[in-house]
């Protein structure tokens, strides 16, 4: 590629969110030893500012959309959607972490720096159009989040979570990378559009090679999105990691991994869809079923939400199975709705669990509605949305996904998926039962009043959930417009 095309100002404009986040993250890191303060809300404010600036940058980049750095990145509606989404998740993670870090007496600057780096990696994943760039984004995001999962160094559960997340995450990455290497060998390129062109071209390599490579990459990505049967790490990690981090892991990296999933499989591997659709079909059904039925048995809320997150990954895979633009749009919408409701639900858990995350049991929600009606009401909104009750984002997400599936004649998957979501209602209802239909227990008696940042961390996702549920048109139209990925 011609050298002169490198790093024009246009490239920089399209790369703006990543730039802002990286600079801000580095700044936080360098500031920390200078300021010498173990705990300060300054770092939190700074990272929120950086994330807001990043969102601004993403929108600016969207106004000048197009390929950047000679096609390494592709800034289009799809990329911008996910970029903004992961940064919003970032903000929603910072908000409850003020209180959390103070409560656990942990350092603030490193947490926020890692968060910003991780989000930057996810932004790269969202807009990457080349497999190695995807890999680098994936690793920036993952390595930072491995550390975040074990952020409480003296907490055994957090250690274990970090270890498992690290081992299985790197394992998945290695798989993904081997697939990339095989694609490189088979097609001589790793640019997604070019790979597609080669597959469709006259000198296409035998489909079986591409198929093997695609299958290996699929396994890697399925690990990353915690789809069954590659979900084994998720429950332990989400349970052991600090709650704000669990919230982040279940929304941000997952959304970015799905962005990669969709982009690779809907562009480069679209011509061989016949090969991978059955695979995704099985994975989708397994994820929904395993997630929901395992969640029924859990008594630890974080673990339950982890299984529910596996089930929700299954729903998104249904959208991928539909293998259409409508399905892509549905997946985008769903992930946005899911990010809000899940981050919100985890924020409530973080608030309730108290110092050292003592109260994680489902019983600890007993009587929350009497002590803190606002918190309970917000959690009710999130849970209803996770169930898929109308007028919430979760409902519309599910609706769009199954609509896309039916359009692609996946009748059985739709019926099984919807029945699955009826099963899922049971375990979410258990929390509602605890909150509203019991007298306050120990955890609720110990609960501290809501701080402004925590209140915001609950109200913002609730507004988002309701907004997506009552006026889904705006987001959906954008998703529909951007689902036409450059082929």
């Amino acid at each position, binding site marked *: 590629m011609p050298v002169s095309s490198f790093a024009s100002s246009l490239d920089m404009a399209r790369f703006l969110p990543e730039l802002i986040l990286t600079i801000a993250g580095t700044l936080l890191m360098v500031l920390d030893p200078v300021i010498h303060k173990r705990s300060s809300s300054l770092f939190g404010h700074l990272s929120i500012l950086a994330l807001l600036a990043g969102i601004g940058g993403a929108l600016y980049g969207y106004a000048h959309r197009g390929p950047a750095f000679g096609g390494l990145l592709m800034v289009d509606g799809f990329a911008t959607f996910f970029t903004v989404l992961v940064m919003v998740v970032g903000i929603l993670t910072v908000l409850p972490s003020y209180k959390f870090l103070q409560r656990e007496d942990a350092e603030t600057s490193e947490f926020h720096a890692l968060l910003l780096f991780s989000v930057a990696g996810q932004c790269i994943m969202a807009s990457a159009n080349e497999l190695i760039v995807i*890999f680098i984004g994936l690793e920036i995001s993952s390595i930072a989040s491995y550390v975040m999962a074990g952020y409480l160094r003296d907490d055994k559960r957090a250690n274990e979570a970090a270890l*498992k997340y690290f*081992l299985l995450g790197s394992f998945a990455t290695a798989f993904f990378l081997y697939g*990339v*290497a*095989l694609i*490189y060998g088979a097609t001589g390129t790793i640019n997604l559009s070019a790979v597609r062109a080669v597959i469709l071209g006259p000198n296409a390599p035998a489909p079986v090679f591409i198929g093997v490579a695609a299958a290996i990459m699929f396994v890697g990505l399925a690990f990353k999105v915690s789809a069954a049967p590659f979900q084994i790490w998720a429950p332990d990690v989400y349970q052991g990691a600090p709650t704000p981090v669990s919230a982040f892991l279940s929304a941000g990296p997952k959304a970015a991994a799905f962005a990669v999933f969709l982009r690779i499989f809907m562009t480069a591997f679209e011509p061989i869809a016949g090969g991978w659709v059955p695979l995704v079909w099985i994975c989708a059904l397994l994820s929904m079923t395993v997630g929901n039925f395992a969640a029924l048995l859990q008594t630890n809320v974080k*673990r339950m939400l982890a299984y529910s997150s596996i089930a929700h990954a299954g729903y998104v895979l249904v959208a991928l199975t539909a293998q259409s633009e409508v399905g892509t749009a549905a997946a985008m919408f769903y992930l946005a709705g899911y990010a809000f409701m899940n981050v919100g639900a985890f924020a409530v858990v973080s608030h309730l669990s108290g110092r050292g995350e003592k109260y994680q049991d489902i019983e600890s929600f007993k009587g929350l509605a009497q002590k803190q009606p606002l918190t309970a009401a917000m959690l009710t909104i999130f849970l209803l949305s996770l169930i898929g009750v109308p007028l919430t984002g979760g409902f519309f997400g599910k609706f769009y996904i199954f609509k896309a599936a039916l359009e692609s004649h996946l009748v059985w998957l739709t019926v099984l998926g919807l029945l699955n979501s009826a099963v899922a209602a049971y375990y979410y209802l258990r929390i509602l039962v605890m909150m509203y239909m019991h007298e306050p227990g120990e955890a609720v008696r110990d609960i501290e009043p809501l701080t402004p940042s925590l209140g915001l961390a609950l109200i913002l996702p609730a507004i988002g959930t309701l907004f997506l549920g009552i006026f889904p048109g705006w987001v959906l139209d954008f998703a529909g417009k951007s689902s036409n990925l450059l082929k």
Partner: protein
Amino acid sequence: MAEVPVSWFLTLSAVLFVLGVSGFLFRRNIITVFMSIELMLNAVNLTFITFAYQLKQVNGHLFAFFVMVVAAAEATVGLAIILTVFKNRSTLNIDDVNSMKN
């Protein structure tokens, strides 16, 4: 120099990769598991370089550089995590690091 066929390299890398996977799945010592992952990444590197050689492209070599750097970063973080686990539990057996199931 008699040329070594490309397929030999590919076979070697595939064997290394599968050994890595098996090590990951069957080994119980965390450090060994971790080394298995590194083995997988290096198998990938070998594949990249072989293909780059075969395709007469520079790209593949560069990819290998990236993979190496990223793998190093990952290794650092991973070792740090393993150290904290060891510090808290005094064990490196992966079966003993399992405190969470219901």
